């Protein structure tokens, strides 16, 4: 099966245009990252210079991985059922687009802004820590391994969150239900990253490589499984 880039791009562009003009989506995408920024920021800025030694064994930064796990979840959960409720799904599916192309366009439209926001929030956090934290805190916190983990796991977690969200969206009949389920389904990712951040699960190279490999496989499978779950007939007629 060949994927038409032009059709994928058409869906991607259309989605981004819709996001830009939908205040609810923009506000939702802005609020959630800010909420996840506040807790670690307050915690780090309140640390004294003497506490910097204790930071060497913690991974406070990984707490921010909750952002790529949760921000795209609501977008992805809206993607199919939202079109269905608006009545725009039937005209789109009446074109030569394949379900794989449609879903890839939808996934990319959730992926790109979510990853961009996650990196932007992360950079903002680092800048604030560098400027306002006590001397010694920033060098202790900003370790290369954590930065690398953030860079690698952000797209992997976002991808997984998106495929879960879209899978829920293809099977839901109501937007709100889909979005709530989408967030709920991604809570395990948030829990795991939080446990690593708070040192309950020890972050080692093996854990990191294993986690990345699992997420990579899940992301590849996600597209195929979601495509298989995408039933044109059920989505159009609401039956079967």
């Amino acid at each position, binding site marked *: 099966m060949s994927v038409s880039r032009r059709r994928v*791009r058409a*869906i991607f562009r259309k989605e981004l245009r819709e996001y830009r003009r939908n205040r609810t989506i923009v506000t939702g995408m802005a609020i959630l990252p800010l909420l996840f920024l506040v807790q670690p920021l307050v915690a780090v800025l309140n640390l004294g210079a003497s506490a910097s030694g204790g930071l060497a064994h913690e991974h406070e930064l990984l707490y921010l991985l909750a952002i790529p796990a949760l921000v795209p979840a609501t977008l992805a959960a809206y993607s199919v059922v939202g079109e269905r409720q608006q009545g725009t799904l039937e*005209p789109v599916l*009446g074109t030569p*687009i394949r379900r794989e192309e449609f879903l890839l366009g939808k996934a990319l439209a959730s992926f790109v802004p979510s990853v961009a926001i996650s990196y932007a929030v992360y950079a903002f956090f680092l800048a604030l820590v560098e400027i306002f934290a006590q001397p010694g805190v920033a060098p202790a916190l900003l370790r290369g391994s954590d930065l690398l983990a953030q860079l690698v796991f952000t797209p992997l977690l976002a991808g997984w969150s998106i495929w879960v969200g879209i899978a829920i969206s293809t099977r839901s009949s109501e937007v709100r239900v889909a979005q709530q389920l989408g967030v709920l389904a991604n809570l395990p990712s948030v829990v795991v990253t939080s446990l690593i951040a708070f040192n309950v699960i020890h972050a080692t190279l093996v854990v990191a490589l294993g986690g990345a490999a699992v997420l990579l496989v899940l992301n590849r499978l996600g597209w195929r499984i979601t495509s298989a779950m995408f039933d044109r007939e059920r989505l159009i007629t609401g039956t*079967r």
Partner: protein
Amino acid sequence: MIYLIRWLIGKLRRRTTSPAVALSGRDEPAVHARGERFVTPRKVAASDAVKGDGEVGGAPALSALGLGKRFGDRVAFDDVSFEIGHGEVFGFLGPNGAGKTTTVRTLGTLIAPTSGSATVAGIALTPDNGVEIRRRISIMPESPGLYLRLSVTENLACFADLYEAPNPGDRVDRALRAVNLADRANDACGSLSKGLRQRVALARALLSDPQVLFLDEPTSGLDPVATRDVHELIDALRRSGVTIFLTTHRLEEAERLCDRVAILNTTLRTIGRPDDLRDQLFAKTLTVRTLIPLSEPGRVFADLPAVDGWRQDGARDYVLAVSDSTLAAPAVTRALVQAGADVLSIGESHHSLEDVYLELINEDEEARRR
């Protein structure tokens, strides 16, 4: 550099192509600006088609054989068979819930049939052929289904890309001119009236230069002026050779636009040209009105050529069953004059498509009650 070259080619193409004339070939959309005429020799014109036989130079544009769709125990439509010729406007009529929209969705590959077979735009209706069929057809659903936050142009550009249309900018411009919406191109679809949204949906259906165009209630909810515009566009598309499958509740619309109609009430009740259906269902009659009642109507109307019988309808009206009105009318007139009757009017009774429709649907209703 590549973009610059593409841009220059695009500019040159625009200059050499008159917007008023839809060119032949699959690369150009079958659209026209209001008041402009199509010049499209690419397909056999409707007037040349052997309409009713469903064939023009080979395979029909659309055919179904025993096609049916069930949702569990519920039958949406069953045993539907027809053939539609190229360039034909085919009306698909029926009451709510008769299965019209489901038939369109089935032929449009949006849902799978549970029985029978079909070919759409010359391709067998199978799951593997879905993409290829959808390349050649266009469906305008009853609800416009536009992205309301996007502008008219953005909506159409998105669909031009989904159809992988060459020169999408030109296609969008032409489609907008065809539905007379060029001046609203940058308006958000959410700000348009229902009629204008319907026109945008029609423009969207024209983007792919379809061989077969499915229009599901295209004038539903439109005011008379907007309805007339849609009718003009359908007429223009017919002239350009596009095959149109039109579902509608408006019987006068079907009568005015369609070469043939089918009446569906879960199963196909009848199919044919509106005139033929009228002749099949209703006996031809002449209605005579006189100034004063005839003293011996039985003697006046007896033994007249092509008159099969008569009955009195009120004091001064007589309804004559005739086999050929062109033969009967002069004979009846002569007989009345010879009888010294003061004739006010002699007219042939006309049955509309609505009469045909109601007759068939009422038959179904009565059958169900029994």
